[in-house]
């Protein structure tokens, strides 16, 4: 069925060191179906499916992240292809957001966070000490869980990035960037008559699209989205999902989501995370129709999570 047989053990710490405890054959069948699926132990660094692609945008190898003594990401290797939409799914606390935040070094500001492993964006190591994090973040934009527009006007929100990166030499250029970004985010028609209005006065869905426009305005190559629709109603969610589909033509998009339907609708590939492990990566269709790992199957069929 798959390359890795799930082994069951009461001693999880032994497992985390990679020691496989043999389990009698007859027991194995029972526990799989009747024990809680969370108890299934994953072998570290082993990912089912196809985690690697040719000519990837991001090449991530042996990634390990810990907060103090807690290991949040355990030896994950993954490629993220060009112009693909990859969805990270998994139960709460499985490390998918932590992993996402490594991709534009947002974890740098968390004092106790330690990141190990190799991160290559177009072949360049993004964690190199001489590397400018400002340039990295200009290339890898981010949209957050809760819409977080600055308490400024709509125009100033979108113009914020271009201004700090000096993308426009004239006011008219800046105007163009703002208009294009708002158009791409599908917000132009709603916002064009009130560009000077406070962004905080918009509805939640509009605010989130504004945050997407703000991210687009610095012309990034990759956009990271951390549960972008979790604070939105279904209609606003549908609009953002449409937007993701449109944007996938020109950007690489990594989206963390708790909604499996959303992952199924918007992504090309899906990665399933569990307790800091990357359990399975495959084409989205494959993950949702014939998952290869029992944990993935349990999760997408709603047995936990």
């Amino acid at each position: 069925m798959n390359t890795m047989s799930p082994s069951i053990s009461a001693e999880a710490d032994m497992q985390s060191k990679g020691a496989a405890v043999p389990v009698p054959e007859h027991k194995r069948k029972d526990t799989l179906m009747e024990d809680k699926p969370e108890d299934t132990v994953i072998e570290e660094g082993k990912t089912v499916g196809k985690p690697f692609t040719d000519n990837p945008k991001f090449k991530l190898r042996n990634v390990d992240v810990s907060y103090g003594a807690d290991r949040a990401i355990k030896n994950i290797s993954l490629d993220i292809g060009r112009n693909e939409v990859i969805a990270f799914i998994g139960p709460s606390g499985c490390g998918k957001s932590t992993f996402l935040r490594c991709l534009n070094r947002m974890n740098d500001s968390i004092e106790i966070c330690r990141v190990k492993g190799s991160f290559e964006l177009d072949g360049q190591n993004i964690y190199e000490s001489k590397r400018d994090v400002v340039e990295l973040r200009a290339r890898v934009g981010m949209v957050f869980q809760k819409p977080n527009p600055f308490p400024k006007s709509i125009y100033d929100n979108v113009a914020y990035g271009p201004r700090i990166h000096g993308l426009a030499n004239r006011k008219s250029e800046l105007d163009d960037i703002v208009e294009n970004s708002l158009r791409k985010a599908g917000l132009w028609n709603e916002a064009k008559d009130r560009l000077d209005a406070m962004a905080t006065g918009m509805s939640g869905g509009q605010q989130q699209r504004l945050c997407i426009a703000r991210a687009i305005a610095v012309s990034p190559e990759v956009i990271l989205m951390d549960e972008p629709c979790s604070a939105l109603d279904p209609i606003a969610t549908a609009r953002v999902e449409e937007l993701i589909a449109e944007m996938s033509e020109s950007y690489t998009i990594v989206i963390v989501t708790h909604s499996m339907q959303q992952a199924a609708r918007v992504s090309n590939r899906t990665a399933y995370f569990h307790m800091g492990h990357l359990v399975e990566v495959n084409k989205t269709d494959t993950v949702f129709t014939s998952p290869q790992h029992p944990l993935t199957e349990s999760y997408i069929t709603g047995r936990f999570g």
Partner: protein
Amino acid sequence: MQTSNLLPLILVLAVVAYGLAYMRSRAVAAPLGGIRNLKALPFYYAARAALWCAIPALIVLAVWAGFEGKVIQGIVIASLPQDTWPESAGQASLILSQISNVAAGSLDPEFVPEHIAGAASLLEAMQDKSGNFKAILVVLIAVLGATFAWTRVAPHINARKNVETTLRRIFFVCAALAVLTTAGIVFSVFLETLRFFDRVPITEFLFGTSWSPQTALRIDQIGSEGAFGVIPLFTGTLLISAIALLVAVPVGLLSAIYLSEYASKRMRSTIKPVLEMLAGIPTVVYGFFAALTVAPFIRDLAEIVGLEASSQSALAAGLVMGIMIVPFVSSLSDDVINAVPQTMRDGSLALGATQSETMKKVIFPAALPGIIGGILLAASRAIGETMIVVMAAGLAANLTANPLDSVTTVTVQIATLLVGDQEFDSAKTLSAFALGMLLFIVTLLLNVIALKIVRKYREQYD
């Protein structure tokens, strides 16, 4: 019995009432099948009994103690022979103090006229009688109140509601007390201020440019006319406060930014308490630091660069005061900067902004209203500061904008006007009340503005 003995007695009675009512409520509940069948918990019946015991008794005690003295005085005065009745209030108080001295035994009855000695013995008798009556009445009321509450320990009566209502009223009285005290102080200052404006026209006070409150005690003395122009005092206050704020705002604000955005957790937990300790140093300590160290240093420095500086200067007082109010600015600013949601920082950093760009363009504008509120609070503190200025800036009411000159402030003048033996109805002492009133209005305005700004800030993120 003395009032001071009655208070503990009432307390003891209340505790006894509490215990009895508690036991009775349990006893009442037992045959019904436990306290679940009472309308309220035993605690509430007990608390109600204690309140019924203590509150009426305390009220009677307070009223009695309030009127006792006046009533007895009236009776004693009325008992004097008609031809010795006092003609004025001053005379009456003289006679009364004589009588009470005799009654207290500090004046031998043989040295005073007979009618005074008689009145003294009457006073003594009256005080004894009043004390006994008071004690009996208060204890009686306490016991009656407790008994009443005790009879009303019944399963169908909801004591919880009564207790809650009473407690709410007690809290209200406490809150009202603070408000009434403030109002009382303002009112009395206001009345004295009006008396001052009877003597000195308000226009002279507000627009006069010279301040010299020394008035003559005798008509023929030189300089009998005092000058009560408040402008030099206010320019002095403004000058020193401005210097203080020039020190405190940049230092406080930048340290707040460092602490909230750049410092590591450990650094922050060390620096912040130390910085706040500055606010705990007594101002008089700052004062002698300013007078003995900073002021001479400034004078010497000014002489080196060829400027003339007095040994007491506005600059010295302002600089030291600035250090003193740094924690007001830094602590409040630190709080409002921290109150800006982390998502704002993340949003800005994720767009590739540096930490200082994020600070400058996102955090600071968002926190600005709160920061201004903090600065205004620090300003009203600076305006009200007295000790440092007394010691470091002098008493001379110079109308000047030169920080190297010695100036004086409103608060310093108030202090000097009322220190020492003074005649309390001269223009000189009354002017202190007018100054106090004016200062109160200015700081009140500042506080109102500060609160308004802070409230506006709050609305932004809620």
